[in-house]
């Protein structure tokens, strides 16, 4: 009999993602952890949500875990197969109509205290034209971060949480209150949360700076501060309980049985 009472950091992160999705929300997912989290939400935590992907596939309910946002696994099991430009128009119109239904998950390599995210490159000793490390680039993230409230997925490491990122691929709250408006971006949209393997960060309503909202049963506020490259308020932090065994069973047996995105350690 498999043991579902123990869970990994990644499974906790997927659960935290699922918990962040609210009733009837339209959820923009990519592949990887956010997809597992959204699948979990759709099946157990919040079945009324509607997952959509940036390629233009709307209300997806894949049977097998897709590898890319344009995967046939999404395409064959969705409500509408729109081209990407319709997706862009839809997210922009949601903002123009002042709807508050969209929530989007994006990832990144570096993040600053205001939730500005870099997924383009790390300069190192070089610069943008010849960087030390190059990533994929924007993909859909910049457009999503323009028009939608976002949840940012990160690995919690000091070198990733820094005062200034080399390159802002997806705008967060810029330099604080009013920053988005000054840049020409919708001011009533922006990052809501950062979900990491150590906890959940939110942004202060006044200052727009990141603070620790929740830590996990296996982490602590001190651990979060140690692994954050800037001063972070940990005084408001609460403990988030871990998932029930049934949730872990769902992830392992039904959502990602091939362990495409969540590796399960072998039982001893």
């Amino acid at each position: 009999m498999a043991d579902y009472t123990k869970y990994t950091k990644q499974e906790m992160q997927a659960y935290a993602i699922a918990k962040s999705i609210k009733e009837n929300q339209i959820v923009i997912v990519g592949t990887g952890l956010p997809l597992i989290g959204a699948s979990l939400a759709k099946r157990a935590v919040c079945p009324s949500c509607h997952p959509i992907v940036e390629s233009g596939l709307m209300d997806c309910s894949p049977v097998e875990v897709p590898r890319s946002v344009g995967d046939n696994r999404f395409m064959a099991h969705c409500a509408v197969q729109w081209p990407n430009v319709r997706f862009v128009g839809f997210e922009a119109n949601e903002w123009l109509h002042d709807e508050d239904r969209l929530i989007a998950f994006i990832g990144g390599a570096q993040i600053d205290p205001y939730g500005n995210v870099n997924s383009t490159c790390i300069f190192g000793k070089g610069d943008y034209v010849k960087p030390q490390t190059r990533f994929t680039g924007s993909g859909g993230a910049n457009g999503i971060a323009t028009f939608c409230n976002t949840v940012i997925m990160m690995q919690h490491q000091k070198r990733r949480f820094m005062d200034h990122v080399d390159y802002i691929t997806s705008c967060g709250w810029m330099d604080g209150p009013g920053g988005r408006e000054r840049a020409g971006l919708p001011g009533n949209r922006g990052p809501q949360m950062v979900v990491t393997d150590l906890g959940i960060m939110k942004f202060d309503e006044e200052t727009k700076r990141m603070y620790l909202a929740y830590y996990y049963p296996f982490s602590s506020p001190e651990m979060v501060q140690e692994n954050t490259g800037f001063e972070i308020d940990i005084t408001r932090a609460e403990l988030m309980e871990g998932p029930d065994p049934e949730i872990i069973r769902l992830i392992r047996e039904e959502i990602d049985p091939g362990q495409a995105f969540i590796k399960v350690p072998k039982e001893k």
Partner: protein
Amino acid sequence: MANKVMSLHDAVEKYVQDNDVLCFGGFTTNRKPYAAVYEILRQGKTGFVGWSGPAGGDWDMLIGEGRIRAYINCYTANSGYTNVARRFRAAIEKGELVYEDYSQDVLMLQLHAASLGLPYLPVRMMQGSGLVKFWGISEEQRRTMEGVDNLKCVEIENPLEPGEKLLAVPVPKLDCAIIHVQQASPDGTCIIEGDEFHDIDIAIAAKRTIVTCEEIVSDEYIRRDPTKTRIFGECVNAVVRAPYGAWPSQCYNYYDDDDKALKEYNLASMYLDEEDAKAQLQKAADKAAKAAAAKPEDEKLAAASEKAAQAAKDAADGTKVPETFKDYLQKYVYGCKDQDDLLNVLGGARLMNLKNEPHLGYSTRH
């Protein structure tokens, strides 16, 4: 009606020209016109300005082979197999690729604007980000480059809503578009099943459009149900029958991606060629040795160092050199004279196992 059917060789020879502004249809690992990419590689065509869209191995191969003059990009990866396309990444980190980054949503709108014949495009996206701040190709350079717009973007005020900040971006002027579709008829009419992506946009926008397809059907047959046809034949210059022409990417209702090939490419594309493999393995061995020496009591580091040293030695003396990017291309591109030859290399059983399972929309047999 016009008969535009020709061989892949002739279509690429006639309609793809050196230095073209070039764009492909498809989305990362879905309906990418790989057969045409292989033929471009075989014919040695080069000097392209690429508007890549959501790119995968298609553009990575052209970059690795040095065929790109300027790469206008928003995302390059075989998603789910390679996090960042490896020849793309290596070329940028070595400073060997002239490139520009856009937001994917903006780039797709630019291609759409091209299909609409718009003069330029105002957007809200990209503002405040590095996408505006950093230019891969300077204005000075741009003015000297044929086929590259003079400016990446311009900050403007909405002329109809004074005070609103916007960004103006150029509309691409495509010389050549290549798309792979499920069915086409000799006059160029196309049926695309599943998501069209930006394929229709670029087929309209480009001066020359090549369509490769799984099946050629008659002009009469394709008109039996015009709700299914998506591209007007007059936008198309060449129609090429290329079964499995999107391999190793997917083709909706026809076949799934070939995970074996995409995994093979992921590993092979780590090394440009034999010399690069040897150098990289030696570098890895030196690094592992240094790490092990710093912590002599750590058994894991010692074992890793030994393993890395062995791999470097085996590569150096030729005992075991890992497959490289060049080897992969030799096997599936240069070593095959055409698409039929490639399908024979892959073999019947392998291709049959990729076939779509109608009740699922993908394959579970590979």
